[in-house]
């Protein structure tokens, strides 16, 4: 019961966790789509026209509707047009509000802190940011305990909104950990989240959308070139 691939197009790049996020949802809902790969160092006419405000991926194009950017907005849209297969957001308004709050938190903290770490040249500065990252993962561990309530995912028995919102960063998290020699999720401070990361990595619907280390390294090199670290 898939949808024809011409109905949905996704503009993206393999290394973008925000694109991966949308791919997770499309996969969970068994939605077929056409993937259009973008080179962010040389953006296509289509991307610039589709997202003139931000010029970023992901952008979703559904049938002949205007293009839709912003991963969280795209996910809510997909959940509304395909509500019957694997609902992503919970139905209770209070839990929805809590989910949306934490999605907002994740987006203001996780990737921006990884970027900040990359851009900070001096060791002292890097150590301070690493400390912040670990504080964030501590808070996320508490959030996981609350939302999962003993079950395997933030969404409970099945993958839900926050599993997708946080899960898309796992490739980069591994990369940042290795590159900076520290643990973001570990057995001592964030044991439940560490277990959760293993579940996400191996999940049928998600594992193909998590980029490999080579893809990430290429993207990292591009970032270092076009958005170099601050002068020390």
């Amino acid at each position, binding site marked *: 019961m898939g949808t024809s691939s011409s109905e949905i197009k996704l503009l993206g790049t393999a290394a973008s966790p925000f694109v991966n996020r949308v791919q997770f949802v499309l996969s969970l809902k068994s939605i077929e789509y056409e993937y259009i790969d973008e080179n962010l160092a040389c953006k296509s006419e289509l991307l610039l026209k589709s997202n003139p405000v931000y010029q970023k991926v992901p952008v979703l194009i559904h049938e002949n509707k205007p293009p*839709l950017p912003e991963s969280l907005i*795209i996910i809510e*849209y997909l959940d509304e047009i395909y509500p019957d297969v694997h609902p992503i957001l919970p139905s209770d308004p209070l839990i929805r509000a809590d989910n949306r*709050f934490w999605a*907002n938190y994740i987006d203001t903290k996780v990737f921006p802190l990884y970027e900040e770490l990359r851009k900070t040249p001096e060791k002292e500065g890097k150590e301070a940011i690493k400390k912040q990252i670990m504080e964030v993962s501590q808070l996320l561990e508490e959030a996981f305990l609350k939302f999962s309530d003993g079950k395997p995912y933030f969404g409970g028995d099945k993958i839900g909104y926050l599993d997708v919102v946080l899960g898309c960063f796992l490739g980069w998290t591994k990369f940042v950990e290795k590159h900076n020699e520290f643990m973001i999720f570990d057995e001592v401070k964030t044991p439940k989240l560490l277990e959760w990361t293993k579940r996400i990595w191996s999940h049928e619907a998600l594992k193909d959308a998590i980029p490999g280390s080579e893809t990430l390294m290429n993207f990292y090199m591009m970032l270092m070139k076009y958005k170099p670290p601050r002068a020390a």
Partner: protein
Amino acid sequence: MAVKLLGIWQSPFVLRVKLALSLKGVEYEYIEDDILNKSSMLLQYNPVYKKVPVLVHNGKPMAESLVILEYIDEIWKNHPLLPEDPFEKARSRFWAKFVDDKFVPMIIRMLRITSDQKDNAAKETREILKTLEGSLDPNKPFPEDKSLSFMDIAIVWVGYYTQMLEKMLDVKLLDDENTPLLNTWFRVVLNLQVIKECLPPFDKLLTHYTNFHERHTTAS
């Protein structure tokens, strides 16, 4: 009371929530938070950000103005704020987020701007406003009290606070040549009854932020 709103009078994010509650006729207790002493209620209800607005409904707190707006729309079904069509809903969310992503950092910058940098900042602000004008459909009638939507209440404060910045810094931001439709939209919507009742007094806002600006731009 079942609904409490923790806020500060000058916050445009608190204004958004006040407007939503007002439009739906929801009775609530408003509690002015003393930000200098960060009341213990705030720390209890929003330990993550320690910021207002916080809506407490039947003892359950929630934070982030746009998240609160969506919750209010889901609980109280009269005067729906978000459109029914999923794409139009997405579009409303996009422009609300745009204002937070682009305009808020700009205001924060302007409140600390020195006189040598203000013209540049004003130019960038006008560009942001020009983009925002693109969100308006010139063929659609202007909203009235009974038709105010999620997008309207997410955006309307921009006009008010921009007028305040113009006076404070003596710069032109709402240029009729640059954003004629947006300026008219702001003029009409800021004059609606339900909006006027919730806006903080203009002179009080101007004095407050003028003092803020002076404190942050005077050499210590």
